[in-house]
């Protein structure tokens, strides 16, 4: 898998999907990001192979008189990338702590 540096927003989107938010507006609610950020990020993550999308069965949508939804799920690569990114972000320490102990930075 090509190693890609994920932005904080992208990690938030991956984490929202991993938490069970599977389509656009739910992901926006979970992350607090706008639609103009979430939709392109989802496409980018799909092209990177970190998420995959599936369309709802059209028969169900037709029965409910609405367009079919597009669901997003993490791929195995996406789960690994999310775990890596979370670990990296968790290892961050406040700048004041780094200054106080420069040898351990």
């Amino acid at each position, binding site marked *: 898998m090509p190693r890609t540096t994920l932005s904080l927003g992208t990690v938030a989107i991956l984490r929202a999907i991993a938490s069970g938010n599977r*389509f*656009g*507006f739910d992901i*926006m609610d979970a992350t607090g990001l*706008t*639609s*103009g*950020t979430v*939709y*392109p990020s989802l*496409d980018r993550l799909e092209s990177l192979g970190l998420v995959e999308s*599936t*369309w*709802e*069965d*059209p028969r*169900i*949508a*037709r029965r409910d*008189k*609405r*367009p*079919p*939804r*597009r*669901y997003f799920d993490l791929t195995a690569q996406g789960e690994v990338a999310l775990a890596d990114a979370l670990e990296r972000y968790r290892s961050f320490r406040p700048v004041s702590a780094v200054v106080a102990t420069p040898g351990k930075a």
Partner: protein
Amino acid sequence: MPSSRRPERPEPATSDPARPLFRFALTIVGLAAWLVPDWHRAARRCQWQADLCERRRYLERRQAFGVSPQVDLVGRALGVFRHAIWLRTSEWRLEVLLQDVRFGLRLLVGRPAFTATAVLTLGPGIGATATIASWIDALVLRPLPGVMETDRLVEVGGTDGLRTGLAMSYPDYVDLRDQPLPGLAGITCGTFWPMTLRVGNQADRVWGRLASGNYFDLLGVRASQGRTFRPEEDQTPNTHPVAVLSHRFWQRRFQGDPGIVGRSVLLNERAFTVIGMAAEGFYGSDVALESDVFVPMMMQPAVTPGDLLQSRGNHEFKVQAGLAPGASLARVQAGVDVLARRLARLYPETNGNRGIAVLPLWRSPQEASSVMGPVLAVLLAMVGVVLLVACANVASLLLVRAAPRQREVAVPRAIGASRGQMVRQFLTESLLLALMGGAAGLVMVRWTSGLLAGFLPATPFPFFVEAGLRPRLFLFALAVTSPPVSSSARPRRCRRHGPTSCPRTLVTVAREEIQARLGRFSVETMQPVNRALDDALGLTRG
């Protein structure tokens, strides 16, 4: 149950007269969808509308679908414009373009005969055009290498009613120099003269330039070793026998020995001290002529016959001046006209019928560029026609090749490739072809540029043109080749008829395409052009 298939046809969103803001949000995403490339427009519209509808259902279940949530939905709907623009521009991302380049290269490598024919057709045409362009660049656009701000340099020459740009006498130059003329930053004079340079027992014929003391300062030329002239070395005749060598002459004659600075050499049997070498890349201030040695003007009696410094009737010197920033030729001309009239009054015998004209370098009859410029322009026009024929031939090749590629276009179109993607792919291929032809042509320039100098008549003058490969020449080659080749490469036929008409026979499509695109131009116009070129080149048989 989720399905991985895309929806075949998205359901229209439910209209609701009681929810005008929600309907407005649906309209917004419908409008945004028009920005999306057509091959996934329906899917995106469906995705956005489904998200809006789902949120509405959720809010209605909680009985919270009031004005405020609807305004929030309108905001989110407006946000999808950014997504739509991202989808549109993502077709032109660098990685996508590189993908096109890779695919285009694979196609060209996969058809070596076609590629070689096209490149070998374009290469000589581009090479010939670029050769002439390199000479125009060297003689007209960059006439004095190593000189700062050539475009501000003008020549001040005499006129006699019939001719203009005549050489001037030294006393006239002194009057010009000492008269504060508006618009001039400085003025210099000099002349080009053959000399004999002797070091020990070895004597060489060199071309020297007598130059006024401010010569190097006005031209913005520094010394690469030692120094250039000082003002006091150009004040009194025959008192400062110093010389500056050109960098190329120093390398050629003295093998770049820095110890030559301070040593004495004989110029026309008079001892001169070498005080330095001019900057590398500076060959003098005469277009297409190379000076070997520079000597202060006050040393004229030592190196040329007669005393030209005192004689007003001896018009021997070329006067050059630098325009002040923002000054116009007309303003300077007005100033020198006043001076010329005054000189005519004061010295009617020598200056009675003479005026003074300020000319840009490219118009000065004393410079080679004024003679060679028009000749080169005619040559450029001729080789331009040759290049046009080459481009027309390659365009025909591309059109013929486009016929069997109809299926190649139809398949991606059928599986969703947009028109823009296909046009971009064809343009990339054509540009690659143009680049390869341009590269072949520019390789030719390395030799043909020197070959052209062989056609110049034998002359004792040190003719020197620094023509060759320069970055602007690459741009020129690309500019002259790309448009005609690229414009023939669009898959217009397939666009017009759609995928179903694509599997046509090669001959039919090619003939129609050529007739449609080139038509009368190709058949009727190009034949006389080809015949005329054959006649000109002596290729007509019997």
